[in-house]
């Protein structure tokens, strides 16, 4: 990018980004949690072999929990969350998927890089937890809906469409096909709000954009900080 469109955006510190720090287990067990998991792991070591997938999961969970226990000095690393979820699915395929909530959607998209700043959409407050809606009450074999309202850093930001596309691609790749995804610019945040909204939610245009190698390259770069 030869020139920044918005050179001085407001930046949130990573530690201020919303995460699941309010988790009830965390509150209940506090520092004791580390000891408990350690004890469970020790017991499992006695029953199972070292290569047991269950054991590996415990290890990952420990890592995850430890990050939360250290009073959220950093946002939990997404890679770890994903790896943990994936291994969960591998070992317990019969289990139903966890219900998706706004925080989970936020975690999926907050680490997407801004196309012109070396910062994430979460840090720039382009995506905000309060602006994510999830409607998923009909069960696992029914359709569900996710609505994400984004706040471009400036009202004439020409990259708003690209950011929206990045979010859509990220969610389409991560969520079950039962989710209908709507990406909107937050009311009053952009000059050509309706045009951008229409384009971002046109299935055919999005499908065609995803076959454009150049565009896909830019989007992949934006998403590379997610994993």
């Amino acid at each position, binding site marked *: 990018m030869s020139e920044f469109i918005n050179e001085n955006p407001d930046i949130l510190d990573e530690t201020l980004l919303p995460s699941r720090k309010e988790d009830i287990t965390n509150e209940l067990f506090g520092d004791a949690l580390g000891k408990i998991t350690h004890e469970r792991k020790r017991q499992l070591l006695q029953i199972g072999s070292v290569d047991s997938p269950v054991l590996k999961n415990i290890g990952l969970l420990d890592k995850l929990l430890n990050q939360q226990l250290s009073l959220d000095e950093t946002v939990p690393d997404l890679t770890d969350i994903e790896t943990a979820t994936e291994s969960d699915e591998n070992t317990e395929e019969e289990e139903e998927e966890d219900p998706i909530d706004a925080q989970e959607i936020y975690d999926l998209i907050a680490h997407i890089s801004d196309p012109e700043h070396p910062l994430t959409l979460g840090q720039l407050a382009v995506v905000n937890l309060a602006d994510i809606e999830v409607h998923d009450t009909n069960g696992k*074999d*029914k*359709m569900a809906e996710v609505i994400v309202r984004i706040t471009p850093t400036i009202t004439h930001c020409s990259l708003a469409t690209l950011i929206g596309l990045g979010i859509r691609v990220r969610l389409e790749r991560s969520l*079950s*096909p*039962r989710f*209908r995804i709507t990406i909107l610019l937050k009311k009053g945040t952009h000059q050509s709000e309706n045009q951008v909204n*229409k384009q971002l939610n*046109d*299935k*055919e*245009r999005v*499908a*065609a954009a995803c*076959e454009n190698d150049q565009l896909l390259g830019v989007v992949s770069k934006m998403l590379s900080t997610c994993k």
Partner: protein
Amino acid sequence: MAGLKLLKSLALHDDKCWSVDVNNGGIMATGSTDRKIKLVDIRSFQIIEELDDTAHKKTVRSVAWRPHSNILAAGSFDSTVSIWGKDDDGYNDENDLETELLAIIEGHENEIKCVAWSHDGELLATCSRDKSVWIWEADEMGEEFECISVLQEHSQDVKHVIWHQSLPLLASSSYDDTVRIWKDCDDDWECCAVLNGHEGTVWSSDFEKSNSNVRLCSGSDDGTVRIWCLEDDNGEYEQEWIQESILPKAHTRAVYSVNWSPKGYIASTGSDGRLVIYKESEDGWIVECIHELTHGVYETNMVKWVEYGSKDVILLITAGDDGHVNVWKFDEN
């Protein structure tokens, strides 16, 4: 109570299936994001052929059989149209021959959204994100195509084109929220009406299969299906069309496809995965039946009545984002 029964679900594609068409020989063609075109016998549900998938470099968005022939047109996001057929030299049994690429039509600037043949098979209409509709004159073999008109009055992407079954009329639906009606005026195609009313992209439209009325139904991103009626055609360039009705609301999301049956039923489907059948009664249009989750939790891109086979059996086919084509039996009673 009328109802729909799933006869067969065909897992044909690895990605979204966008379009499906059946010719009068009972051969179904399908197009998909996986860039493949498949031919399936609608009687046995067996795949007959997979066409050469190197012909298109991107999504095959739309497929259409030339009436009363084995010639197929396919429009792609790679901005070209491919024409397919059997090069019959008169000696071989037609069924033994492979379908070959007869022609590639170039002209549009970017993604082709829809292709449609006129009822006599002489003209092919194509439309694109480049905001234009092109009308091509085809030779009998389907090898030579001459562009006879470029229609450029839509202000945005043209999503869909469809011809009237007997009159020289073409309807085009657009991202600009309108439908335009085009008429043959001394070998030049002119826009004779603009249908305003939808509050979102118009994804598709279809003419009534009637010789007494000239009506059109249209399905939109606004979730509605509307009926338009030709009020006055004074023989001049302009036609007067009015919005006759909005069908009872039965969709919760965008309506991607509408199709009017020869018997007068309208079918619609879309993002909510519903397949809805409407019937015209003395008190206006009513919803005859709704089938939920026609392609599971996926979106349904297209619905089409099948005119092939016994007159007593009414079939519908749907194409979904799950890559499947589903064949439905519609029971009127």
